[in-house]
């Protein structure tokens, strides 16, 4: 009989509030004493991936920073729904910059702290994909080049959602947006070469780059903690589904984030000083269609006769990611990939590697 590898996972080990784990492996979110940096009462849509990502990331950062952290926020959904005048849901010092300059404003905050000898206070900047990939890119690149001591977090929901779901350079091919409607011979966003900011960040050679999703809290918190362990320019790219913009069920947010990873469309990895240092393997590879079908922004690919040609192109993109990053281990038969760490569940923030 052929030997088959079997993986055992403790029930609920990926669950957010799992208290069966040793204390050092528990998530920050499972701790009643967490900061709640983004407190309840904000006006995000039901199922908003960005609200989830921001709470997860900032609470982890606050834990790592011993509660001494300043946040700079670009214009966008997060800024708008978190500070509806006259209220704010932020429990950390928070500055709304402009759309394009969160990285620069954060650089300024970090410089002020340095000038005043406040080396104990950390700086986090956050923006959506628009404020990172498009209008914010020049400032981001400048911050990277100077290696300013800022952790920049991009919450990527793949479009300008706050203004009505327009296309950004993070919008994937074939997706419907208000400025790339699903009409004509090439419905949805055109196929281009994309703009992979995590890869661009890696190319800048900065100390730490990581991608993560809101489906894997332990992994996300670990990466925030890891980022906070170092100084200099750090970049975290978090995949956050948007039920409104993607026309998906608000209860599907975490599931879609998981599917993005498991299909290979969103590679999850870490990089340091220009080299990929770890890859989070796909546990159960799935065809892209599993990920696309629940989203209305891809509806046109399946309506009527559908567009299997487009789906095939998207599958090819996923396959290319799998090859490039070695997202399938050798036992999944995906072929060669870079040497990586074993795909254990990453320990929660507070633990080390």
């Amino acid at each position, binding site marked *: 009989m052929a030997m088959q590898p079997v993986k055992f996972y403790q029930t609920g080990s990926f669950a957010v509030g799992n208290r069966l784990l040793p204390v050092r492996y528990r998530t920050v979110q499972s701790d009643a004493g967490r900061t709640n940096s983004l407190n309840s009462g904000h006006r995000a849509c039901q199922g908003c991936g960005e609200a989830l990502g921001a709470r997860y990331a900032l609470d982890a950062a606050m834990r790592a920073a011993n509660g001494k952290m*300043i946040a700079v926020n670009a214009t966008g959904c997060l800024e708008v729904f978190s500070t509806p*005048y006259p209220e704010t849901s932020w429990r950390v010092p928070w500055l709304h*910059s402009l759309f394009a300059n969160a990285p*620069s404003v954060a650089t*300024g905050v970090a410089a*002020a702290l340095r000038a*005043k000898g406040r080396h104990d206070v950390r700086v986090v900047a956050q923006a959506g994909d628009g404020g990172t990939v498009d209008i914010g890119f*020049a400032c981001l690149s*400048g911050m990277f080049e100077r290696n300013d001591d800022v952790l920049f977090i991009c919450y990527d929901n793949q479009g300008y959602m706050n203004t009505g779901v327009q296309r950004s350079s993070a919008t994937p091919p074939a997706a419907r947006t208000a400025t790339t409607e699903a009409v004509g011979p090439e419905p949805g966003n055109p196929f281009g070469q994309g703009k992979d900011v995590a890869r661009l960040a890696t190319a800048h050679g900065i100390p730490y780059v990581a991608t993560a999703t809101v489906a894997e809290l332990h992994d996300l918190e670990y990466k925030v903690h890891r980022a906070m362990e170092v100084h200099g320019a750090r970049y975290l790219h978090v995949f956050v589904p948007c039920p409104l913009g993607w026309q998906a069920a608000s209860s599907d947010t975490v599931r879609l984030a998981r599917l993005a990873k498991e299909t290979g469309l969103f590679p999850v990895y870490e990089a340091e000083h220009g080299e990929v240092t770890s890859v989070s393997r796909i546990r159960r590879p799935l065809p892209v269609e599993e990920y696309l079908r629940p989203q209305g922004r891809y509806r046109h690919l399946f309506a009527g006769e559908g567009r299997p040609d487009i789906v095939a192109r998207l599958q090819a993109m996923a396959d290319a990611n799998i090859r490039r990053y070695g997202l399938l281990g050798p036992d999944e038969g995906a072929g060669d990939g870079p040497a990586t760490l074993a795909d254990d569940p990453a320990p929660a923030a507070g633990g080390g590697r």
Partner: protein
Amino acid sequence: MLRQLEGSRAVAEAVGLCRPEVVCAYPISPQTHIIEGIGALVKSGALEHCEFINVESEFAAMSVCIGASAAGARAYTATASQGLLYMMEAVYNASGLGLPVVMTLANRAIGAPINIWNDHSDAMAVRDAGWIQLFAETNQEAVDLHVQAFRLAEELSMPVMVCMDGFILTHAVEAVEMPTQAQVDAFVPPYEPRQVLDPADPVSIGAMVGPEAFEEVRYLAHVKQLQALERIPAVAAEFAAAFGRTSGGLVHGYRCEDAEVIVVALGSVLGTIKDAVDELRQRQVRVGVVGVGSFRPFPEAALRDALGDAATVVVVEKALAPGAGGILARDVTMAAAGGGAEVRTVIAGLGGRPITKASLAAVIEAAGRGELEALHFLDLDHTLVDRELARMGTQRRSGPAAENILRDVGVVSARVR
């Protein structure tokens, strides 16, 4: 100590004496020597506890200032012209948030066509952004205004820009009395923010404000400008007492007491105008000049007083509102309203066109005789203009206007008449 040095170098040292904590800069002619000077002060260790950041654009420069100021640090930058436009969004943001950033604006023309020489179009482009705008007549005043600027900005929690004519002042070498560190420390105390990002006392800064409160927030910005009208002369008076010389203030009159014609202007051209005034006075022409030191807030009442009973006011300005005429002149007209004076606008010195004493004297005398038109362009070459208009009138594909004119002129540089 009295020293003979370049204006930019003097300003760099003056800013250094004010103990900035974060200086960020993107180079643009004619501000480069200022930021190079400060950069050298920081790198050599002469200026301590200051972070000097080379940013990748002017927009980033003002953004860094905003972040630094919000975190409680004294922040400074410098720019001109195109760079000011590139940071426009952040310029409005800084004043909207009430952050006491100080910026040197090395006045330079705005293109197209691209022009690196002096005029006031850049300052005029941001006149409604809510910043205090002070204009220096000499490099001495430029130095002194920076010291006053940090004081004013932090007292009022609003940003201040010190305008100094690009090249004409920045690159001129002349005698300047440099203050001492002790004098500046006594005049500019450490920055005590009204609002600050502090982990020990978290606040949210920069929230959206909707129709229910926006007007009130903007009204408060207006009130701040009116408060500045009080504070600017007060700080200038304190400066005079502490440093022993007159610098800054709202307006300055020269030989206006019995003047029939009063010239009004901003910046370094006042020096040339004063020479013209002296010469005309020798010929018994009753003329005086008022220099406007604070353009924003606009000192309407102080200017009205200074204009007195003059029958004619000639505004000489280095900016133009195409299709409308003067910009400073419009504010001056409002100040002069009800006083019976005729206001004449003279557009001069655009793009670095030299303003000569002779040309000034001619327009002043013409104004005195009632022969100056309401809107006059000093030393305009009508032949050139008419030729281009004729070209445009006869053919559709007349070509780029600026290049056509340059070919007619025959030289690619400033002209002196």
